C-alpha cells in the first residue's frame, strides 16, 4: 500500500482514490471536501460538498445558495466514512470555518492542511496539529525571510499612526474574508474605539462573523457616510479598492496594507503602501517548519508557494519531501498582496 492510493495530485486538485473525492478541487467534480471558503479553494459547481458549517455558509454568501448540488456539514473533530476512508475535519487556524482534512485508512494517516497558521487569531479556532504519516502543507511564506511579527504590535502601529495624523484617513487593505475581520478584532484590541468603516465587499462576511458571535464594536458601511466623518477614521477595504476611484472620497489617505508580503520592502513599495502591516493568515517560515515537525510525519508534500525552500529544509531534516506543483492556489494571497492588476469601478 502506498500513500498515493489514499491521496494523490490530479489536474483537478488533490484526489482520494480510495474514497473517490477531491479536496479543494479547482474545477467542478462530483464530490469535494473543502478546507475553507477562500475563492481559490472553494469553487462553485461541485456535485456534493463536505465542509464545516461555517465554510458552507460563507460559500453560500459569496457564491450564491445553489453553489453545489448537495452540501453536508461536518463538525470539527467528528468523523464520517467515505468509501472506507475515515474523513475528519480539524481546525486550521486560517479563517473562520477553516479546517484540515484528515484521512485515516488501513493504518495510514494523511492530513491535507489547506491553508493554515499557528499564530493566534481571535476570529477563528486555533490550529489543532494532527499526528500523521504524510502531511500536505502549503508554503505561501516558505522562505526563512518570512517571520511574521506579533500582530498586536502591528495593529498598535496603525493606531499610533491614527493618533499622530488625526486629519488623515487610514485605509487598511485587507482580504475580505478573514483578514478584514481579524483586523477589526486587532484594531479594537489595540485601543481604537471610534467607528471602523468598511467597503461594501466586506459587509456580508463581516455580518456573518458578527452573527457567529464576533464583537467588532461599531462597524459602519462607507457607503452613505458623509465624507466629513472620514478624517481620523479607520477604513477597511479589499486591497484593490485602495487605488480605485472609490478611494477618492478620503482626504489625504494613509495607504495601509495588512499582508505577510509586507515583510519585504520592495513588495510594499511596489504597491505604493505608506504603512505596511505585516499580518498574515498563513504560517510563516517558523510556523511551517514547527508545524511539520509537530505532526511527526515521515513525509511532507508541498502544495503551493515557495515549495523548493521548504522541500530543501525537509531534506536537511531527513524527511521525505516533494513538491506537488499544484496550480490554481494562492490567488487569494496574490490579490491580498502582490497582484499587479487592479479591479476598476
Amino acid at each position, binding site marked *: 500500500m502506498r500513500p498515493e492510493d489514499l491521496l494523490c495530485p490530479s489536474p483537478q486538485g488533490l484526489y482520494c482514490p480510495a474514497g473517490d473525492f477531491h479536496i479543494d478541487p479547482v474545477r467542478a467534480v462530483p464530490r469535494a471536501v473543502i478546507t475553507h471558503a477562500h475563492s481559490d479553494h472553494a469553487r462553485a459547481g461541485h456535485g456534493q460538498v463536505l465542509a464545516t458549517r461555517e465554510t458552507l455558509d460563507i460559500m453560500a454568501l459569496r457564491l450564491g445558495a445553489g453553489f453545489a448540488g448537495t452540501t453536508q456539514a461536518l463538525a470539527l473533530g467528528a468523523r464520517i466514512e467515505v468509501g472506507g476512508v475515515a474523513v475528519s475535519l480539524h481546525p486550521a487556524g486560517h479563517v473562520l470555518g477553516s479546517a484540515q482534512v484528515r484521512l485515516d485508512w488501513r493504518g495510514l494517516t494523511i492530513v491535507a492542511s489547506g491553508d493554515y497558521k499557528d499564530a493566534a487569531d481571535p476570529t477563528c479556532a486555533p490550529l489543532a496539529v494532527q499526528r500523521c504519516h504524510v502531511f500536505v502543507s502549503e508554503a505561501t511564506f516558505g522562505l526563512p525571510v518570512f517571520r511574521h511579527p506579533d500582530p498586536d504590535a502591528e495593529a498598535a502601529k496603525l493606531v499610533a499612526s491614527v493618533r499622530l495624523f488625526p486629519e488623515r484617513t487610514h485605509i487598511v487593505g485587507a482580504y475580505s474574508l478573514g483578514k478584514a475581520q481579524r483586523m477589526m478584532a486587532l484594531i479594537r484590541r489595540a485601543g481604537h474605539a471610534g467607528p471602523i468603516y468598511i467597503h461594501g465587499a466586506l459587509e456580508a462576511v463581516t455580518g456573518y462573523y458578527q452573527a457567529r458571535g464576533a464583537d467588532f464594536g461599531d462597524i459602519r458601511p462607507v457607503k452613505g457616510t458623509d465624507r466629513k466623518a472620514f478624517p481620523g477614521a479607520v477604513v477597511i477595504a479589499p486591497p484593490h479598492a485602495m487605488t*480605485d*476611484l472609490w478611494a477618492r472620497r478620503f482626504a489625504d*489617505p494613509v495607504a495601509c496594507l495588512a499582508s505577510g508580503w509586507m515583510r*519585504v*520592502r520592495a513588495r510594499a513599495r*511596489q504597491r505604493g503602501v505608506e504603512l505596511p502591516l505585516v499580518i498574515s493568515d498563513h504560517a510563516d517560515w517558523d510556523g511551517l517548519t514547527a508545524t511539520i515537525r509537530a505532526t511527526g510525519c515521515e513525509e511532507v508534500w508541498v502544495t503551493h508557494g515557495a515549495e*523548493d*525552500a521548504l522541500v530543501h529544509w525537509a531534506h536537511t531534516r531527513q524527511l521525505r519531501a516533494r513538491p506537488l506543483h499544484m496550480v490554481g492556489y494562492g490567488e487569494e494571497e496574490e490579490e491580498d498582496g502582490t497582484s*499587479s492588476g487592479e479591479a476598476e469601478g
Partner: protein
Amino acid sequence: MNRFAALLDRMAYEAGRNAKVRLMADYFASTPDPERGWALAALTGALSFANAKPGLVRALIMERADPVLFEMSYDYVGDLSETVALMWPRPEGALAHAPPLSEIVAGLASLPKSALPGALAGWLDGLDETGRWALLKLITGALRVGASARLAKTAVASLGGLAPDDVELVWPGLKPPYPELFAWAEGRGERPETTDPVPFRPVMLAHAIEEADFSQLSPGDFMAEWKWDGIRVQAVAARDAAGALVLRLYSRTGEDISPAFPDLLEALDFEGAIDGELLVVRAGRVEPFNVLQQRLNRKAVTGKMLAEFPAHIRAYDLLAEGGADLREMPFRTRRERLAAFVAAHPSGGRLDLSPLVPFASWAELTAARAAPGAFGAGIDAAAVEGVMMKRADSPYLPGRPKGPWWKWKRDPHTVDAVLMYAQRGHGKRSSFYSDYTFGVWTKGEAGDVLVPVGKAYFGFTDEELKKIDAFVRRFTVNRFGPVREVVHEPDAGLVLEIAFEGLARSARHRSGVAMRFPRVARLRWDKPPREADRLETLEALIR
C-alpha cells in the same frame, strides 16, 4: 535602536514633507536623551556609521544560515542587508539585550576593527527585523533616510515654538547628542551659545513675480541684478579663538558643502560672509548648469575634476564684514560695501561681483531680461536665468518675506510631447495617475517612433489632473505594476505642452537628453500626437 529603526522604516514609505516632520517630532518628543540626539546626528548626516563592508555582513549570515536557503531568500528579496535582517536567527534561550543607539555609536567609536564582527552579531541578536535592517543599512553606509538635515532640524524646532532658522543659527556650534538643543527647544533651557566662528546665516529668498504685481511696484524703489543659473551658496570666513582662519561653504539650506569645493575655499582671502552663486567659470566665461552639475553631489573630488571644473563665486550680498553684522543695513548700503569688499579681496580670481542691471522703467528691465547679453551680461548671457529685483531699502531677512525681493525668470522653453506612461502618485494622489513620462518623435527603424525624454509630475491644476487621470484609465494599453502605458500613436494620444529650464546631454536617458525642471504647462487636447515635437528640435537647444 529599535525605535529609531521604526522611525526610519516609516519615513522610508512616507512621501509627504510635513508628515515626515511630524513623524520625527513625535519620535523626538517621546525618546529620551541621549538616544534622540544620536538619532538626530544620524538624520542630519553629522555622524557616519559606515564601518562595515557587505562582505562582512554576508560572512556573518553564512555562519548562521543554510547557504541554499540564504541564496533562495536573497534571490527573492534582492537586497543583502534586508535579507540578512529578515532571516537572522533568533538567539536561543533568554531574549538578548536590545542595544540602544547610543551603545552602538559608542561601540563603533571605540571598538578595534577586529572586534566589529562579534559586536555586530551581538547587536543583531538583540534587535528586531526592522532594527536589524536599519543597523545593517547604517553600518554599510547604504541608508537612505528620506529626509534632509533641514527637515530634521525643522522637527526639532517644532518641539517648542522655534522656527527652523533658529535651530539653524545655533547648529554649527553644537555637537551630538545635542542635549542643550533639545532642552532649549522644549523650553527647559537657554539658547545654546554658538562658539562657531563661521556660523550659517539663514538665507533670504525671493518670491516669483507675477504680471499683476508690477502695477503695485515702483521701479525707483528697486535695484536689479542677474539671476545666475548655478547654486546659491554662502561663503563664510573668520578667525577662531586661536587666531586661525576658518572657512566654510554652505548650501542654501545650511548644509556644509565645503569638502566638495577645496579649490574655492583655498582661494578665498577675506574675513566675512558672502551670499552668492556658485558657478563653474572657465576661461573667463560662466559655464551652463549642466557643467556645474559635474561637481555637485560628489563625496570625493579628484584633482582632475578640480582642474576641469574650477568653482567660482559670483557675489550678490555681504552679510558680515570682519566681525560686523551688516544684515540690518539696507540693500543699497550692503551692495556698496560688497563692491569695495570684492575689489579688495579678489581671492585669486575665484570671486567677483554680480553686476547690477541699470533700469529706469519696467519696460527697460523687460528688455534687459529678454536679452541679457546686450544689457551687460555679455558672453555669460546664456547662464542668466532671469533677473532679481531687490528693494534698495531691504534688510537681509531670513526666509521668504513677501515684498522686498522678487525673482523674474526668463520664459521657459516649451516643447509639445506625447504622454506615454503614467504612474500613480503618493499620499493625496495615491488614487491618481499623476507622474507622467512623455516622449517626442524620432526616426526609428520602421518610421517615426516616440522616445521618452522626461518625466513630469506637477504644473497642472487639480481639474487638469482629474482629466488626465480619466484619460489614463480609459486609454491604458499595458500595465506594469503601478505604471500604465497609455495609447500613444500618431492619431491617438494626449499631447502635453512641457515647460523646462534647460537641456543637457545624458548617457542615462535613452533619448540622450535630460531636461531640467520639466513640468506640464498646458494640455493640448486639440493637437494630434503626430504634430508633437521631434528630438532634433530638442537637440538643437543643447549648447
